[in-house]
């Protein structure tokens, strides 16, 4: 299975994401933001960072990069897409996911190990976990507060599309402690904390992030 990892100008976590894909057992394929070619990948990861310097709004410029037109088209046909941190912001700006990520409620840039609870294992990216499983992975963002209107929130909750929640004190002001959500079909997932930094205890707090990268393989086998 080939998993594309997109690099925008200002992306930081593409290498860790590619490594996580390989450790998970798939083949990572580098994609460049200006390419109008998805190189026959089966899934795509939008990694974290500060694409286009976060100018205008986080993810607002990236959303119009040539490669994103193809990602949006493929995602609408069911291709698995995972957006991590800045990638989550890009998916919201692309309207592949509802809501928006805004400035952390206390204005601080956060960088810490964060416990989250997996709340939906029916998506392409979370099937390796069990419902209620708690994992610790790094959280690092300045604009990670998930916001949406009441109607959208009720819809997300009603359809079980919150895939992960922060455990304990709300780190950034996200509504309903939301750390990650999926689209209705479950192929597109956005997650604010970073599973790709927690795939090996040598370099991360745990190896509990690896499940996101093995889940897509489960999906292919099914």
């Amino acid at each position, binding site marked *: 299975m080939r998993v594309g990892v997109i690099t925008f100008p200002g992306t930081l976590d593409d290498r860790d994401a590619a490594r996580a894909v390989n450790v998970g057992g798939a083949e990572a394929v580098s994609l460049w933001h200006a390419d109008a070619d998805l190189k026959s990948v089966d899934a795509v990861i939008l990694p974290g960072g500060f694409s286009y310097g976060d100018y*205008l*709004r986080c993810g*607002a410029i990236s959303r*119009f990069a040539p490669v994103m037109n193809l990602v949006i088209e493929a995602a609408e046909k069911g291709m698995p897409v995972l957006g991590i941190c800045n990638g989550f912001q890009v998916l*919201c*700006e692309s309207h592949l996911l*509802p*809501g*928006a990520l*805004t*400035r*952390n*409620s*206390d*204005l601080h840039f956060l960088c810490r190990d964060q416990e989250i609870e997996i709340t939906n294992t029916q998506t392409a990216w979370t099937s390796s976990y069990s419902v209620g499983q708690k994992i610790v992975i790094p959280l690092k963002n300045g604009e990670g*507060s998930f*916001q*949406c*209107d009441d109607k959208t929130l009720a819809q997300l909750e009603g359809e079980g599309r919150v895939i992960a929640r922060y455990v304990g004190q709300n780190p950034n*002001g996200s509504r309903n402690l939301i750390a990650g959500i999926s689209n209705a079909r479950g192929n597109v997932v956005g997650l604010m904390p970073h599973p790709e930094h927690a795939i090996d205890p040598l370099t991360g707090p745990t190896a509990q992030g690896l499940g996101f990268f093995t889940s897509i393989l489960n999906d292919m086998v099914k």
Partner: protein
Amino acid sequence: MAKIVVDVMLKPEILDPQGNAVASALPRLGFTFATSVRQGKRFEIEVVGDPTPAQLAEVEKAAEVLLSNPVIENYVVRVEK
């Protein structure tokens, strides 16, 4: 020369931590007038000559698609002499 101005503000129901931080800094400096502060963005757009209705319609479209995120923000387009 006239310019087209686009003001983008967070919707009233969206939390504005930056505005709150400004609001709490004001009284520390002795400015006691504010009961609330909201912070937004202003775009100044120049075109050749005076803006035409067609150009303004284009700017409206750009404000909807790029300059603002309609999920969390409202915008106003106007011409400033």
